């Protein structure tokens, strides 16, 4: 098949995907979105003849627009714009999960520092303040006291981009120093790992240690529900363990899987490419 990879930075994840696609004889067009201009009706020349486009844009804004243009041109794209739209914003992500009956941490969104303080006090301390857009654990705050809350809210209101004036406040989940990352394809888990850290943030980007994790039936069912809730696709589903079962705190749409690939026996890029091959009509799969 002829496959386009939208990117602006080639990470280890993209290299793994590119190697797997090329090894199988697929024709790969790397499309650096920084070099494209998107017309309202006519696709850029780089899109010509593509059977499928895979969005691997590092920047959320680029991912959102590029997937929308792909769909307007009638070029199949994974993940879909709908999925990107829901997953790229923590408030939309939480709404989708809660709406689908997926257990997710208690969350409140507020637009002013006064109402954000009310939300924080309603949770008590510690609680968590996150940017609605952002990643790799950046700008996440665990708030231990009212004075810390006042300082952080003032900083965000004064220094932040307007998106930082949407205050996303969440209960602090007292997890066992680890959380679970599952890479799933339309809700079917490829593999899972636990990320251990003494720090409350357990992102692989923050240096958490990783180990393979065997999902039980409950976790598998939640991964499927969470994936369906955001529109499906190639997703990273993040779960935490609580005393009353799992809670899904986030679904990621341009999932990084290099850490998972190193932690598990499954060949993650191979599984992803197997799945991509099912996304185009059988006659064009090489």
């Amino acid at each position, binding site marked *: 098949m002829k496959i386009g990879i939208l990117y602006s*930075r080639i990470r280890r994840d*993209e*290299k793994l995907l590119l190697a797997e696609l090329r090894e199988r004889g697929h024709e790969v067009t*790397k499309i650096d979105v920084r070099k494209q201009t998107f017309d309202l009706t006519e696709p850029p020349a780089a899109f010509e003849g593509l059977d499928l486009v895979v969005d691997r844009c590092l920047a959320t804004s680029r991912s959102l627009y590029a997937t929308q243009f792909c769909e307007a041109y009638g070029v199949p794209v994974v993940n879909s714009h709908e999925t990107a739209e829901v997953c790229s914003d923590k408030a939309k992500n939480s709404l989708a999960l809660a709406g689908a009956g997926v257990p997710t941490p208690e969350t409140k969104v507020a637009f002013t520092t006064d109402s954000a303080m009310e939300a924080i006090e309603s949770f008590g301390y510690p609680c968590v303040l996150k*940017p609605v857009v952002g990643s*790799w654990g950046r700008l996440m705050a665990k708030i231990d006291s009212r004075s810390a809350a006042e300082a952080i809210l003032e900083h965000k209101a004064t220094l932040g981009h307007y998106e930082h004036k949407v205050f996303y406040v969440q209960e602090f989940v007292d997890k066992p120093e680890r959380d679970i990352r599952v890479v799933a394809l339309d809700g079917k888990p490829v593999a899972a790992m636990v990320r251990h850290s003494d720090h409350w943030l357990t992102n692989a980007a923050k240096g958490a240690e990783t180990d393979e994790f065997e999902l039980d039936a409950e976790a598998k069912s939640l991964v499927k529900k969470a994936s369906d809730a955001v529109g499906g696709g190639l997703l990273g589903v993040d779960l935490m363990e609580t005393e009353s079962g799992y809670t899904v705190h986030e679904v990621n749409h341009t999932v990084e899987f290099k850490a998972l690939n190193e932690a598990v026996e499954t060949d993650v890029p191979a599984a992803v490419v197997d799945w991509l091959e099912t996304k185009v009509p059988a006659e064009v799969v090489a």
Partner: protein
Amino acid sequence: MAECVECGADVALHDDLEAGEIIDCGTCGVELEVIDVNPPVLDRAPELEEDWGE
């Protein structure tokens, strides 16, 4: 091998180099973006932006 645009040191390159990849200069530590692979061309990598990452 390519030259670091920041400090001029030689930068060793992998065989599977890809345009768009980021590499570090072992001498000055600056992040470099691979602009082209044949022949290799490097430039300073863009700064991290707020909405980057999964």
